[in-house]
C-alpha cells in the first residue's frame, strides 16, 4: 500500500502490522495528550507538585531527555568538526533521537509552566542573569538546528527526492551541514551547561550549590561533559533496541565500536572529575555552610547513601570501564549492559540534581519533603516516549535513517521487489514529480 514511499533496497513489515503498532502507541499518545489538556485547562493542580516541590517529575524528564539527546550534538561534533567520518552511518539516527528529545523537552516545558500563554515572556522580558533564560534561548535555537539537520533526511524520502527543489535543498543543506553542526555544538555547550547551572547557582540550597569558575558553577561543565559522554550511550541503546525490534543489523560493528569507545573515555574522564568534585563539595563547600554531608543522605525514607553509589559507581565507573576495555566493549552483552547503565547513570544524576534538591530540608526546623507524581504527570511524561516511538517508526519506515541497512541486509530476489516497488512508485509519484 505504501511501498512507493519505502526506501529502495530495504524490506519493511506489512502495512497492517505497521498500522497496528502505530495505533497501540497512538493510544498511549492520546492518553498523554488528554492529561496534557487537563493540565492546560484546569491548571497545575492536576499534578502532585506543591510549594516544596515546584520542580518535580517533569523537570527531571526535561533534563534527562536533553542529556540523552546530547548524542546528537556530540556525534555531529565528532563527524563534522573532528572528522570521524565512520559516524555518518549512525548520525542520522542520532539526529532523529535529538530531534525527538528536544521537541519533547520543549513540550514538557510548555506543560510545566503555570501560565503557558505567557511562555514567550522568557524571551521578551529576558533576565540574562538567569540560567533558565540561557536554557530557553539555547534550547530553542538548538531545536531549530536539529530541525535543520532532520529536514534533509525527510527530503531524502524516495518520493520527495524526486521533486527537484527538494532534491536541491537537501543537497545544499548537506553541503553546509558542518556550519550548522558547529553552531549546534556551540549552543549545546551552553544550554547543557546552563541546565547544570540551574541547580548549581542555587546558593540557598546547599545540596545543589557548587563553587564557581567566573559566573559558572562546576555543575555547568559537568552537565555539558556528561551529556556528551552519556548521550552516545542513548544513541547506541536505541540503535540496539531498533535492531532487536526489526530483527536486523542496521549499523556495522566498527561504527558501534568507535562511538562506544569515545563514549567510554568521555564517561571515565567525566566520572573521575565528578567524584573529585563531589568530594570537594562534601568536605569543603557543604561544611562551610554548616552542613555535614550525612545531612543530605539520612533521616528520610528514600534518599540514602545508596543513591550516591548508584549514580557514581553503577551508572558511571562501571559503564566507563566496560567501554574503555576493548575486550569487554566488543562483547555484545557487556557493551549493551554498559550503555544501558550509562543511560541510567545520567538520568539518576539529573534526578538527584532536581528532586533531591527539593527534598532536602534547609532550615533546621524544616522536614524532608517527599512527593509522588499524579497520573497526569506520569501520562504527560510518557507522552514524549510514545511520540518518540511513533516518530522513530515512521522515520525508519520511510526514510533512509540507517545508510548501511541495505548492504547489511541484502534482499532475496532484490530485483523483483525493486521492480514491483518501482511500478507502484511510478503511479503514486506522478503528481509531485511533475509539480
Amino acid at each position, binding site marked *: 500500500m505504501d511501498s512507493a514511499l519505502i526506501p529502495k533496497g530495504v524490506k519493511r513489515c506489512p502495512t497492517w502490522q505497521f498500522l497496528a503498532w502505530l495505533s497501540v502507541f497512538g493510544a498511549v499518545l492520546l492518553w498523554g495528550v488528554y492529561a496534557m489538556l487537563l493540565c492546560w485547562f484546569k491548571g497545575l493542580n492536576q499534578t502532585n507538585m*506543591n510549594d516544596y516541590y*515546584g520542580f518535580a517529575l517533569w523537570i527531571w524528564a526535561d533534563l534527562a531527555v536533553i542529556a540523552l539527546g546530547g548524542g546528537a550534538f556530540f556525534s555531529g561534533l565528532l563527524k563534522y568538526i573532528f572528522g570521524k567520518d565512520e559516524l555518518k552511518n549512525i548520525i542520522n539516527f542520532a539526529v532523529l533521537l535529538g530531534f525527538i528529545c528536544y521537541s519533547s523537552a520543549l513540550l514538557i516545558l510548555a506543560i510545566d509552566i503555570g*501560565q503557558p500563554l505567557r511562555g514567550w515572556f522568557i524571551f521578551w522580558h529576558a533576565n540574562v542573569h538567569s540560567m533558565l533564560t540561557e536554557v530557553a534561548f539555547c534550547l530553542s535555537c538548538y531545536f531549530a538546528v536539529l530541525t535543520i539537520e532532520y529536514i534533509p533526511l525527510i527530503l531524502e524520502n524516495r518520493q520527495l527526492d524526486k521533486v527537484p527543489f527538494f532534491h536541491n535543498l537537501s543537497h545544499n543543506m548537506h553541503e553546509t551541514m558542518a556550519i550548522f553542526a558547529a553552531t549546534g555544538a556551540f549552543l549545546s555547550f551552553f544550554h547543557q551547561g546552563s541546565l547544570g547551572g540551574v541547580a548549581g547557582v542555587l*546558593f540557598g540550597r546547599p545540596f545543589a550549590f557548587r563553587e564557581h569558575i567566573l559566573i559558572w558553577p562546576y555543575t555547568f561543565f559537568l552537565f555539558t561533559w556528561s551529556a556528551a559522554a552519556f548521550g552516545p550511550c542513548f544513541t547506541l541503546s536505541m540503535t540496539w533496541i531498533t535492531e532487536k525490534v526489526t530483527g536486523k543489523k542496521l549499523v556495522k560493528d566498527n561504527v558501534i565500536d568507535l562511538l562506544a569507545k569515545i563514549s567510554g573515555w568521555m564517561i571515565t574522564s567525566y566520572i573521575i572529575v565528578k567524584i573529585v568534585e563531589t568530594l570537594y563539595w562534601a568536605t569543603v563547600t557543604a561544611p562551610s555552610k554548616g552542613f555535614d554531608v550525612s545531612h543530605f543522605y539520612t533521616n528520610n525514607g528514600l534518599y540514602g547513601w545508596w543513591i550516591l553509589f548508584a549514580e557514581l559507581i553503577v551508572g558511571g565507573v562501571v559503564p566507563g570501564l566496560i567501554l574503555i576495555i576493548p575486550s569487554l566493549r566488543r562483547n555484545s552483552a557487556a557493551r549493551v549492559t554498559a550503555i544501558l547503565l550509562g543511560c541510567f547513570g545520567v538520568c539518576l544524576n539529573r534526578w538527584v540534581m532536581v528532586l533531591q534538591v*527539593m527534598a532536602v530540608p534547609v*532550615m533546621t526546623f524544616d522536614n524532608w519533603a517527599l512527593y509522588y507524581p499524579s497520573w497526569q504527570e506520569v501520562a504527560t511524561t510518557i507522552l514524549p516516549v510514545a511520540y518518540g516511538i511513533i516518530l522513530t517508526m515512521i522515520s525508519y519506515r520511510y526514510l533512509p535513517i540507517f545508510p548501511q541497512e541495505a548492504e547489511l541486509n541484502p534482499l532475496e530476489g532484490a530485483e523483483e521487489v525493486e521492480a514491483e516497488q518501482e511500478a507502484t512508485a511510478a503511479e503514486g509519484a506522478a503528481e509531485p514529480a511533475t509539480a
Partner: protein
Amino acid sequence: MTSAQTHTENGAQTDGKPVAHGADNGHLHKYGMVIDLDKCTGCGACMVACMSENNVPFRDDETDKLTSITWMRVYKLTNGKPYPDNDVCYLPRPCQHCEGHAGHSPCVSVCPATATDYSTETGIVSQIYTRCFGCRYCMAACPYHARYFNWWDPVWPDGMEKYLSPNVSPRMRGVVEKCNFCFQRYQLAKDKVYVDGESTVSEEAYQTACTQACPAGAITFGDLNNPEHLVHQLAQPDDHHHGHPRNPNAFRLLERLGTNTKVYYVSSREWVRRAGDNYLPDEQTGGGGH
C-alpha cells in the same frame, strides 16, 4: 508652611522636575523587621492580618500546608528535650527579603522573565504577578519556602469579595506570590508624604499589617538604614558585614548561606538562636556568620 508651598520647593530642587518619584525624596531605605521570639505566643494574628490585608486566597480545605498560601507562616520549634526541660518557640516567617550580595538575592537572580526584582530604594523583593509565567524557579531557589504558587484560581466565599482590599491586586492561577512587606502601604505613605509636603516616610507612616496585628508587640518594622528607627536599634546591623546583627541575641535565618536577609530574630535562648542556622557539631552558635 503649607503643603502647596513645600511642593513647589521640593519640585524646584532638581531642574524643576518633581522629585517625589522613586525613593521618597531620594532617601534610600532598607526596610526590615525584627521579631522578638521571646514575645511571640504563636497566636497567628499576624498570619490572619496578612491574608486579609493582601487578599491572599484560601480554599475550603487548608489542611495541606504544602499547597496553601501563607505569606506569613508561624513555625513551631522545640528544643527536643523531654519534660521538664522541654521548651517551645514560635517563629513567624515572612519573606526574608534577601539582599544577597548587592541585590543578588536567591530568587531575583534566577527569575528568567524579570518578574521579581530587588529594589535598592526600599530593599523590598517585589513580585510582578502579571509578568510571572509560573516556572517556579524562584521557589526552588528560596530556602525559606516563602514563595507560594497559585495552584488554583482564587475563589472567595459569596460576599467576601466585597471585603477585599482595593489596593492589592488578586493573583491568578499559575503565578507565584509572596510577602512584599505590604508594599501598597509604602505607596500610600509615599503619596501622603507628597501631599503633606514632608521630606520622607516616617517610621509610623509605614507599618506592615502583621506588625500592627501582633498583640504581643513581638514584631517591629522600619528602616534598617535609619538609626532612629527601632529596628535599627534592636538589630544593630553591621553594614561592613552584610548586615550581620551586632546585638548578641539577634540572628538571621540561614545567614551562613549568604542570603543577607532583612528579617532579624531576637531571643535570649541559645537553642533558639542555634536553630536559626545550620552548624557542625563542634561549631559555636553565631560563629559561622559573616
